[in-house]
């Protein structure tokens, strides 16, 4: 008799969707999430496709569904250590790192007020800072603070322990390991933004006013490090001329040898962020080919109406800093005009692609992958990849793959 529980690795939009679809038809589901919060990449966005909703919209509903469904169990700061057994009967060992903050937390922020240590916020892609004890983000779920033990001074400081009225902080908390039994596994490990330090001709992440598309999301997000104001990281100036560099490290055999599907749309979306704040800002989008899948073409057409958004066919292959002004000098050939030009911008956004997370951090689960790290099989073993673990996708299509995988996972455990 097979175990009817389902393990979902990854608590982003795909993982949440798969988990809820399975739980809502009666299956016990375990979500294992590496980060201290659920919601994954979507939580970091200002708006997401297809309807340009803020993430609070779609994620909030899913969090409600989790809260209301006792069959969904989720572990944050958790990673799969090993998987044994086979379809219908998997034993999964899970390591849970200490959060140092328990269920008593009411998110009152008193601990943050007294914490003496600052850290770069990885959630904000280092554009902002948090204290060593911090709330993962404004609407994080679970709404519990967390302590970064890499920087926390520990019991020698313990100011937060004193400040907390609810005895929510335990600096002595230790790593835990648990084992669960499941019949099927959904892999929703998602993606990492491609590492810009490898893009040596595009500044290698060393030019302060060259940001990535995900950093743009954080800059524009109302709860972001600048409370939603799009400004230059170097001096906080309002940018008047902004360039987008499409395919930064994508469709490139020296980097990611595939198209990440949504970066063109993301840059077009960023044009709406910019236009909202700066009616006169000039934007140039440098591209090889603009990809607007399906209905998204309408969105492309809308942005093309904007007279101050110029789209230039030609990849940017050189980016330099003008050290005197902090401006960025971009070199590209305008293929239609056949002219190679250096252009100056206040700020440049690299449209970097998605790399499967398990290509960066190995997953303790044997599953067939392609050269790039996207999962290509596993279904015969009751293992189903969804969302960007399978291929680069937008949120909507990721959710569709998740629903499909939930059904397949159910079929596996019912057999």
């Amino acid at each position: 008799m097979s175990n009817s529980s389902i393990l979902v690795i990854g608590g982003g939009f795909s993982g949440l969707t798969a988990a809820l679809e399975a739980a809502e038809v009666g299956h016990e589901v375990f979500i294992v999430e590496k980060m201290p919060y659920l919601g994954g990449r979507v939580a970091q966005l200002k708006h997401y496709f297809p309807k340009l909703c803020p993430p609070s919209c779609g994620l909030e509903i899913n969090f409600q569904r989790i809260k209301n469904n006792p069959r969904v169990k989720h572990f944050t700061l958790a990673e799969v250590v090993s998987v044994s057994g086979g379809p219908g009967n998997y034993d999964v060992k899970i390591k849970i790192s200490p959060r140092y903050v328990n269920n008593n937390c009411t998110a009152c922020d008193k601990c943050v007020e007294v914490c003496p240590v600052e850290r770069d916020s990885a959630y904000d892609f280092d554009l902002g800072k948090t204290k060593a004890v911090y709330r993962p983000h404004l609407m994080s779920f679970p709404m519990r603070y967390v302590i970064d033990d890499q920087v926390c001074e520990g019991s020698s400081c313990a100011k937060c322990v004193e400040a907390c009225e609810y005895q929510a902080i335990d600096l002595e908390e230790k790593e835990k390991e648990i084992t669960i039994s499941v019949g099927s596994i959904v892999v929703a490990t998602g993606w990492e933004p491609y590492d810009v330090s490898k893009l040596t001709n595009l500044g290698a992440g060393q030019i302060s006013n060259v940001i990535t598309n995900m950093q743009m999301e954080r800059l524009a997000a109302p709860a972001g490090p600048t409370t939603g104001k799009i400004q230059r990281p170097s001096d906080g100036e309002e940018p008047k001329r902004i360039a987008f560099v499409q395919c930064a490290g994508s469709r490139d055999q020296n980097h990611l040898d595939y198209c990440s599907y949504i970066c063109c749309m993301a840059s077009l979306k960023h044009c709406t962020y910019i236009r909202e704040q700066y009616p006169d800002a000039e934007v140039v989008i440098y591209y090889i080919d603009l990809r607007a899948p399906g209905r998204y073409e309408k969105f492309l057409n809308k942005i093309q109406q904007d007279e101050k958004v110029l789209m230039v066919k030609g990849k940017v292959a050189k980016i330099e800093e003008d050290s005197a002004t902090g401006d960025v000098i971009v070199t590209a050939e305008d293929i239609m005009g056949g002219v190679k030009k250096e252009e100056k911008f206040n700020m440049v956004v690299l449209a970097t692609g998605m790399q499967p997370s398990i290509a960066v951090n190995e997953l303790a689960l044997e599953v067939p992958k392609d050269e790039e790290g996207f999962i290509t099989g596993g279904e015969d073993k009751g293992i189903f990849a969804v969302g960007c673990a399978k291929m680069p996708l937008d949120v909507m299509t990721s959710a569709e793959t998740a629903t499909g995988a939930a059904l397949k996972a159910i079929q596996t455990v019912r057999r």
Partner: protein
Amino acid sequence: MSTRIEPNVQFIREMQAAGGESLKKCYQCATCSVICPLSPEEAPFPRKEMVWAQWGLKDKLVNDIDIWLCHNCGECSDNCPRGAKPGDLLAALRNMAYKSLSKPAIIGEWMSSAKYLPILFGIPAALFLIVWALTTGLTIPDGEIIFAKVYPTLQTIDPIFILTVLFVVFTFATSIKGMLSSFKANGLEPKEDSPSFFKSLIDVVKDEIISHRKFKDCESNKDRYPGHLLVFYGFIALAVVTGIIAFFYWTNKLFGFGMVTPLALWNPVKILANAGGIALIVGLVFMTRNRLNADPKKTINSFYDWYLIGVIWFVAVTGMLAQIFRLADAAAPAYIVYYLHLVSVFMLFAYLPWSKLAHLVYRTVALAYARQIGRKGLGE
């Protein structure tokens, strides 16, 4: 307005055969044009050459000056996201230009593939064998080893090589004329205030060739620079030596003073000759190593590359060995190796306009013309 493109498929295949085999992989992102430090602002290369090549636009490509502005550093191929190897395509187009510019075309055909090597070798091998038969009846002369005993300067070496040089000069004169008129046909004309061609030529030699400045401009070329520089100056040294020897041969003949070969080892001219020979060999080691270590994903080596490197090795090694055997008083090997040395020198010079070494002339002319019309790299 729409233009109907007539792709010349045969031409595409020729380009692929001549070294541009990956040209179809290009998806026109223009990384290459940007990354190339020598590529100009207006109509930069090599992105446009890639699309012309894919479309088989022969007329555009055979008249293109930009293939000569390229110094084959490989930066474009290193950064190409598709492995389309634009650097190799431009090298292939130059190889094809050697074939099509220089007449008679049959030699170009022989130079384009390894299968014709027996002809290329056979011509000088037979020629110098006949000479040997006429002078000493294919025997090894007795006494002190003096190569002039088998190949007397006045009667054999001078007429053969003077004729060879005249042939090469004549070939180049006609092909350069064709080349310049093709640039003009492509709309590249000097402006009224442009410097003269001659002045541009002098400037190119002074500013670019002597220092190999453009060769150094790109990162990827770092390894190629010392090899090319050594071979270049090795040849210059040997050319100077040849000139001095020829001069004093005639002063000796006419006025009774000068130098008679073989020279003593301490003779400054002999020292220069040996220094040149060593520079040549060291440079060749660099070049060969770079070719062998080249990443096949970034560049491939064509027959043109190997022919030239091979023949220069042939020249350098036989030259050195002939001297060593002579000094060791090993008569038979000395004369035989000297014979091979003459064959190799003939193979280098007589076929020069059709070999990759023709870039020495064509690139220099094209660079001078580019300078005259003001075509230079962005930021140069």
